[in-house]
């Protein structure tokens, strides 16, 4: 889930790239296009040019941080973001990425104040609320996390861009807390937004399994398996189907999905 969100986040930043005329900004725009094209080395070269021309160019610094995080160079990301925030302490996006850098390195206590500050800088941006919620959930504060997820949903709705992923993040926590029927409401919202979401069908299957409807759970699980995407993984879906078919007393299907898991993940003995 983290990886997918990161990709969404990075793609969304494209709109930051407005037409500018300075040489530094021109180099930055070129770098941004190369980043989207996943030509990372060329992107880095252009960023170096941009930052040589203007070491305080915040969009270039945040792009460099994103690039660094993509290749797991969190130390480089952190340094770029600190430079960006020194240049412009009011930059929401730099501050948000600063929180993300801590979150992705599992430094949750450090992520908290960074995301909080990002929220202060732009209270209307749902991303800070969402990630603050995820941080609080990981720190064992589920009630606070739920409030933040609801806030993120509200902000996304206000911006006219509700996200299925946000509903699913919330529904997973609700399922874990045993609030099954509340989870169903958010799963339905996610499915309405993205009828072909593998994750949404998987969560619906989990809900149905929890409610004891193994036949429908299997149908939803099979639907999820046919949909593209890597989150949830095939192993996760096969495992759900093993259980659903076991409940439905279909041993051949149980065996089929169990073997599929073994074929995917099991190392072979020498």
């Amino acid at each position, binding site marked *: 889930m983290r990886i997918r969100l990161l990709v969404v986040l990075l793609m969304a930043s494209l709109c930051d790239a407005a037409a500018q005329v300075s040489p530094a900004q021109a180099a930055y725009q070129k770098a941004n296009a190369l980043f989207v094209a996943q030509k990372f080395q060329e992107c880095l070269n252009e960023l170096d040019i941009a930052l040589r021309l203007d070491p305080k160019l915040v969009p270039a610094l945040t792009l460099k941080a994103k690039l660094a995080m993509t290749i797991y160079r*969190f*130390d480089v990301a952190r340094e770029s973001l600190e430079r960006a925030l020194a240049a412009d302490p009011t930059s929401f996006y730099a501050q948000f990425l600063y929180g993300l850098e801590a979150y992705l*390195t*599992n*430094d*949750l*206590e*450090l992520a908290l104040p960074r995301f909080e500050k990002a929220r202060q800088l732009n209270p209307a941006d749902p991303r800070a609320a969402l990630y603050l919620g995820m941080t609080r959930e*990981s*720190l*064992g504060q*589920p009630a606070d996390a739920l409030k933040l997820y609801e806030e993120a949903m509200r902000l996304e709705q206000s911006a006219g861009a509700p996200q299925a992923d946000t509903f699913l993040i919330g529904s*997973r926590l609700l*399922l*874990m*807390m*045993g609030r099954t029927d509340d989870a169903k409401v958010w799963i339905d919202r996610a499915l309405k937004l993205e009828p072909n979401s593998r994750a949404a069908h998987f969560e619906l299957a*989990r809900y149905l*399994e929890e409610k004891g409807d193994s036949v429908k759970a299997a149908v939803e699980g099979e639907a999820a398996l046919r949909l593209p995407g890597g989150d*949830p*993984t095939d*192993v*996760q*879906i*096969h*495992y*759900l189907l*093993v*259980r659903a078919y*076991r409940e439905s*007393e279909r*041993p051949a299907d*149980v*065996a089929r999905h*169990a073997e599929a*898991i*073994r074929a995917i*993940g*099991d*190392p*072979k*003995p*020498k």
Partner: protein
Amino acid sequence: MAGGVAVLDYDNDGCMDVFFTNGAALPSLRKTGPEFSNRLFHNNCNMTFTDVTEAAGVAGKGYSMAVATGDFDNDGLTDIFVAGVNENILYRNLGKGRFADITAKAGVAGVDPKSGKPWSVSAGWFDYDNDGWLDLFVANYVVWDPTKETRCGTTEQQYYCHPDAYQGLPSQLFHNNRDGTFTDVSITSGIARHIGKAMGVAFADMDGDGLTDIFVANDSVRNFLFHNEGGGKFREIGLEAGAALRDDGKAIAGMGVDFRDFNNDGLPDLIVSGMINDSFLLFRNRGGKGGFEDYGQSSGLRMATRQLTGWGLGMYDFDNDGWKDLFFGLAHFAELGHYIGRDSALPNRVFRNVDGGRFEDVSSGAGPGFELPAQHRGVAFADFDNDGRLDAVVSVLNGPAKLFHNITANDAHWLALKLHGKRSNRQGLGVTVRIVLPDGRSLYNQATTSVGYASSSEPLVRFGLGVNRTAQRIEIRWPGGVTQQLTDVIADRTVEVTEEAQP
């Protein structure tokens, strides 16, 4: 990791003694001084202990991890197996407080001619073929070479890599040849076919077919449930049985495991500890084709354990009310302290079983000493002062071990069975027991020393009887299939039970 601990009555004086494993110098993996010795402490039967390591000859060699105790030669003296990174050791108990290292002769060094000695983290004794002689299961972790260890993280923050960065290993099964030697049957039994990252192992007859099954808790890959098919063969059915993964299909960093019946339905269930944000696993055994269901959410354990990192554990009835409770030895990885913004040392936790349906955290009332955080690791359980209340000994990394004396104040009654196998193995490991109480309740338990992580607990079979002063009926099923009954047994004592001859 390290930190195995065992309780055993090595001198048969009726008081449980304690054995600790210890590490070694790095990267040599050699015990270069007494600070690395494994330790055996004799229980003076007054809640004091004497270090008898030297006299017993069990200081050991290599980087030791786990300890498993059992009377493998049926001579009435409990023996010790130590599993480690580079050395396994089998100590035969010679009596009079002396042990002999018979590893090489016994054939349990575990060294593969091609790949060398696998890193073993846990081990356990059980009789898989019901021939009356204890066999040995050795749970292996990952391929690791301290001289070539790579570090993960950033240049400023370096730490051990995630288990994903290491290649897993198959575990090993050694058949007892009844003459002081063992045969490695890992391949023929089907055990070696499955590559895991084993941390904990526990045994129980999960389906009542008279054959003992094996559960292996793996770190960050799916768990294994080896169903004993008979004829020396095992089939791995963790996926089919629903005990391989968390209910969202993700693997947890499995560590300790206990395989016991928490809801007194006669079917052994599974509790598995894991890492922060994993939630510990509680799998309820539904019997027959029902397999296991993830009972973490229903029991309240899922949210209650989500912020914990657990190692040793045990499912025992600490308040003798007839329902088995849970004890967890806890500590986050020391290197994670910075990231989660809190001390990686944790206090242990005890959860009370409420009528077999849910568990409530009662740690805050367990005493001030109980709330002290430390780098806890292995846990072993025994009644050290024979007062009928089960105590726990916990190893601590780089610190003194802790002995938690159970001083629960209530009027609950109890029974312990000390088993003497005749046709079955001498300690009766694998015996299942049902007790019928005057109030109509049935309680279930079994004999095993393989409990938790890297550790070994007492072999007695214990029951809390609540308000009942007698057990109306005790049904004992020996591993070979012999059953015997005791009736109207008075509570609050240890009952010696000798296996009856087969009719």
